[in-house]
């Protein structure tokens, strides 16, 4: 993929500073929501789900586990794009 190196090229790429700002906002929101958990009494059908920060911890661990497992699966399952001989592009 050749990059457009003309004068407007800069406008096309996302500035690292902006990315950082988005990421720090996300960190802040995560922190804020966990703090909020101290003050909101959540009504849960299962007692374990009512424990402090349950959804936050479970969501984080679930996603990391999902990605790591999927990455491992790639070693087992990944073949050439035209493995079945029917690639249409």
């Amino acid at each position, binding site marked *: *993929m*050749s*990059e*457009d190196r003309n004068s407007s090229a800069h*406008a*096309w*790429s*996302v500035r690292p500073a902006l990315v950082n700002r988005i*990421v720090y906002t*996300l*960190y802040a*929101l*995560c922190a804020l*929501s*966990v703090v*909020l*958990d101290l003050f*909101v*009494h*959540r*009504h*849960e*059908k*299962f007692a*374990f*789900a009512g424990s402090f*920060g*349950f*959804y*936050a*911890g*479970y*969501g*984080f661990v*679930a*996603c*990391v586990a*999902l*990605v*790591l*497992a*999927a*990455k491992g*699966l*790639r070693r*087992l*399952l*990944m*073949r*050439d*794009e*035209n*493995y*079945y001989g*029917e690639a*249409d*592009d």
Partner: protein
Amino acid sequence: MLAWLANPAWLLIGAGLLLPLLPYRLRQGLLVLAPLLAAGWLWTMPQPTVVTAMALGYELTPLRLDGLAFVFALIFLIAAMLAGLYMLHLRSRMEPASALVYAGAAVAAVLAGDLITLFVYWELTALASALIILANGPQTYRVTLRYLLIQVSSGLLLMAGAIVHIRATGSAAFNELGLDAAGGWLIFAAFGIKAAFPLLHNWLQDAYPAASPSGTVVLSAFTTKLAIYALARSYAGTDILIPIGAVMTAFPIFYAVIENDLRRVLAYSLNNQLGFMVVGVGIGSELALNGTAAHAFTHILYKALLFMSMGAVLYRVGTVNGSQLGGLYRSMPYTTVFCIIGAASISAFPLFSGFVSKSLILSAVGYEGAWLVWLVLIFASAGVFHHSGIKIPFFAFFAHDSGIRCQEAPGNMLLAMGLTAAACIGIGCAPGLLYGLLPYPVDYAPYTGSHILSQMHLLLFSALAFTVLMRTGIYPPELRSTNLDFDWVYRRWAPAVIERGMSGLAAARNGLHQSLNQAARRHVQGPRGKRVESILAGHAWTTGSMVLAVTLVLVLYLLSYFS
């Protein structure tokens, strides 16, 4: 005859059959107007409505409208209208015509009150949808045949099950069936194929990404949700559906993470969303069945929206491989926004449609006390956000600049996406609109502080996991590849085994032939010896064994041809 044709579904089927004969402008009008008129007709029909007719010596029910049928028929007609708008620019005739017939057949199947009527429309959806895939060009020939083979076998199972059931009970009614008798199991398998149960699922990921940009939008709405409706009609409260559904929510998301074709990622996530609905049917309480119907309704909209946005990318760029895309938000800003709305809806963000429908099912699971299933569904919910909510928009529209500069999607595509997006937000902000359409009264408030906070925790920390994995370089890059799934068994393993077995048999037969021949030459003299030789050489095969051999060769040929 009139009993069969006086049916909103036939407005679509008739329009689809008429469409190829009309000039372009009229074809365009028909694509949008037929579903709209049919929806209006459906809306004004009293509930319950039951129309019966005599055919084949049985009293059949071509039309039965009640609460459950209404909500599925209505969303099918809305989806047909939106998809029609999305394909308005098509000059070809085959895809729009097939789409109308397909949507009409799906509505007719939902409105069917007996198993024979259901079977007829069940097979019509298979044929019409196969034509939609085929309309994308000759390169889809083999995938279309694979798809058709599997869809038609679902129909054959349904027919066999219906015959067994009718002979056993004397009733052809399409109502509660259960798994107490053989007929029930056969029909269950037929529904399971179309609902893409685990290991019966690969036709979906195989065929849907092979259709045209608009073809996939049409396909995503009907077949699988018709199967969900059929399961809800006949197998509500069947316990085995709960583990089946739970597995369905979880295992496709691993594939979705590593898949490169973004429309195939969406096909895997479609499979995962069906799992939530299957769990709801398995629980079978009023809350759970409301949840299944509500989730089918919202899911058809946001999944169509996501397929529309990826279809627009495919239409403009020519590929939806994550490895080749990136930075498209500048070229396609509206499509980007619509895609993000679809992503937020499927991820169940508060104020978006998925939030108000999925929680009905999760709540029903909670009332059952099924904590393990609940944990699997929460895991799958976090995973959905991860691969559909973040991965799809991120790799298509952001990530790095791929250097691709293209036009924004055509106006009719934008309009279709805009309307679908508006529906996703509308339902999310005013859930009463949706709850009012459900088959049972709803006593449920999705917007409690507790529910919003727990969902935001789940989503924010899933996003955090994605961010951390991206920034540390652990997240697997998008790679051009094929990932082996269960279809490998029938596309590679079985043909290879059969080929090896047949060549082994041939070798054994040759060996036996030779050694017997030698023995015969050595020990038998005269005309008897000649006879032994001629039998062994195959001159004296009976007609029966020839037919068997020809059949075997044909089956082998078919298998190796489709693999």
